[in-house]
């Protein structure tokens, strides 16, 4: 596992050498704050909670996370630097993990920079900071789950745009699965047991559960599992491509 840290460091710092990262963070923050204040009506709600922020976060991630993940593998494969990478004494798993971890840390930085919102509601009133903490925890895990999907789609194609679109589509399906409106629609077609199972695969169900303030190990495991599956698929695809 020795190669993990150098790789991880290189990837992570690499973000900050590109102007894209800064643009990304700025747009993400402004979109998040915009949704919170304008669409979510934080100030008008007169409730000291960040529910108006976390309601829109899954949808923001839907677009932003694949944007972060799309270049992770597609770029390397297109420019050929991936060959260089594998001349190094690094296993596929290490490489995948390192890139994923770097991307995840980057996303966590972006998430962390939303801290003015926390300061704001603490200034305006006295929110339940336990719930705020739990919501941020859920967001962090959910970002990881989204990212693992994006990494996987990034490995599938050399073209960043294609991986972006694929990433968005798959994430969209995963979000939809747990979304109340969608499950209600499906109710007419499938029996209830099937629907409950399907919605337990979706991001929203587990994210909302954690955000309530009741941290259930099963929800934590869900996100870690999704990340695991995404990364496993990532490794498999890269191995397959490498072989061919």
């Amino acid at each position, binding site marked *: 596992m020795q190669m993990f840290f150098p790789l991880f460091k290189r990837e992570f710092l690499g973000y900050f050498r590109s*102007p894209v990262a800064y643009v990304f963070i700025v747009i993400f923050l402004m979109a998040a704050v915009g949704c919170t204040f304008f669409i979510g009506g934080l100030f008008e709600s007169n409730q000291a909670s960040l529910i108006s922020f976390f309601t829109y976060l899954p949808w923001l991630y839907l677009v932003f996370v694949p944007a972060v993940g799309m270049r992770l593998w597609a770029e390397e494969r297109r420019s050929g630097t991936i060959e260089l990478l594998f001349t190094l004494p690094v296993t596929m798993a290490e490489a995948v993990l390192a890139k994923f971890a770097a991307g995840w840390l980057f996303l966590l930085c972006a998430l962390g920079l939303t801290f*003015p919102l926390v300061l704001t509601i603490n200034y305006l*009133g006295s929110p339940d900071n336990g719930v705020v903490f739990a919501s941020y925890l859920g967001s962090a895990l959910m970002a990881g789950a989204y990212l693992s999907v994006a990494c996987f789609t990034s490995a599938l194609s050399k073209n960043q745009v294609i991986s972006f679109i694929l990433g968005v589509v798959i994430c969209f399906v995963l979000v939809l699965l747990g979304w109340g409106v969608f499950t209600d629609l499906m109710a007419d077609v499938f029996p209830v047991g099937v629907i409950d199972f399907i919605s337990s695969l979706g991001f929203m169900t587990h994210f909302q559960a954690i955000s309530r*303030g*009741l941290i259930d190990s099963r929800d934590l*495991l869900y996100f870690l599992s999704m990340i695991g*599956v995404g990364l496993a698929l990532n490794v*498999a695809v890269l191995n397959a491509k490498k*072989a061919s």
Partner: protein
Amino acid sequence: MNMKVWAQSAVGLLTIIVAIVCLNVIATKFYGRWDVTEDKVYSLSEGTEKILSDLDKDLTVKLYFSRSLKELPLVIKQYATRVEEVLKEYAAVSDGKIQVEVIDPKPDTDEELWASRYGLQGAMLPSGEQMYFGLVFIHGGVEHALPYLDPRREEFLEYDLSEAIVGMFREEKGKVGILSSLPVMASGGPMGGGESWVFVTDLQRSFDVTAVSPDAKEIDPTLKVLILIHPKQLNDQTLYAIDQYLLGGGRLVVAVDPMSRTDLAMSGQGMMGQMPQVSSELAKLFEAWGVAYNPSQMVGDALLGTRINAGGYPTDYPYFMTLGEEQFVSESVITNSLRQMLYAEGGSLQQKEGSPFSFEPLVETSASAGVAQAMMAPYMSPQDLIRQLKVDDQKHTLAALVRGKFPSAFPAGPPAEAEVTRQHLPEATGEASVLIIADTDFLADNNAADKFRFGSQIMIRARNDNLNFMANAVDFLGGSQELISIRSSGKVARPFHKVAEIQKAAQEKWKAEEEKLTAELQGLQQKLSELQQERTDGNRFVLSAEQQQEIDRFREQEAEVKKRRRIVRKNLREDIERLGNRLLVANLFVVPLLVSGFGLGVFYRRSRRLKKEKTHA
């Protein structure tokens, strides 16, 4: 070659996925939950935990929920999941004593038959299907059902469940006695006495309530709580009996009153020349407990006045106080969850100077209260009484909990001619507790609840928390403190303090102005209606030119004043809007600007370095 590698990675992938799935399946049995909310909304409260740990009998709870129905509203489905989770918590905390069964009573099955046999009510969904959502506790032959679990009662879920459990195993209801000069309990007298007051019926759900005679010679020591209502001129023997009951470990709830309207209504508005005595006191005993109370004074608070119809004019009457959350001392379990009470021409309590005992105010007025002579109340008009109010700018205590090792109010022993069977107690054997409230009218049916007919039944709906105050007080003193602590745990709203502060400050600033304008407006409107009156009284349809002119003039003035008032109200909101805008800008731009600045800084340094490298090359 290719195939082998493919197969290998496929197998590897599959193994991982299977492993993950297995892990998740295992997790459904072995899992942990952490409630990180500040209010511990998802954990059981201490009261329930105590009840469950004290539970020594096995209990089965069957939750019937028609989960498989198609058209179930999401709210109900989510609530059902929550109820199931809470029941599982109960089972977990009860150390196996409670078994939970979740049943889906599909139509035309045995389960459905059992559901209705247990008394569960089915609700008809718009699709025509019958939905069951209720539960039943079973122990041996005893059953207690909660026929329908209403999502709107979510905050009381824990209370309802714990109360059901406690109620199931209560061997006998605790005994509570009421000694009252007002006819609060139904008397089966020859005239076919009246019904019990609502608060009595309420108490009878959890306690065995008996009437105690106002000239009782002895108080049954097995009474958990003795409630004294409007004690008027009790004789020494009875006072002694109460004193000894308290010192021997009994608990008291005392409701005295400087001005009892109920009493007044009963004793008639006075025979000529004789003023009815409608106040009550317990001076001798209060003295021993370090409590000061003036039975000739009633408390008024202009800020808390209630609107009454006084001779056709709606007036804010300061002696009928509508008490809000700020008036309840939140630390006490008795008042913690109360939201509103009506306090009708009552008095105030104080701790006697130098009293060594504990005096805990439970209910207070605002800081702009005052007092008036209670004696005058039956004879003066509300407006006159309002003028009688002498504001002393102090918070008056309306109800308090007094505790301590009280001395006997009869230090020299039992009064002469007393028939005493027990040894005289000169002092309380342990810490005695008395809850005193200086009003009795708040318990009257028409002040506490609305009664209405529902077919052949009379339904009672509490209008405020008056009944809850009494129930909490008796529960607290009677020992079921666990239930009260559960009663208090509910959802907590978290509004913006800052906004409220600004609103208040702005209101102070503009209140005077707005009041002036509103008064002006009212004056104008009254004038206008007077003019209209003239018109319909005198010349039916024809107006003199002058009258018309006057009316027009007043209408103009009215519009002007309304406009001015609108401006004032707008100013009230401006400060808040400004705050909102400032926060929006701060959130939207500060960090993004910092990030951009940081990014530009990084690039600037890099381009400088590159330039340097270039020039050196």
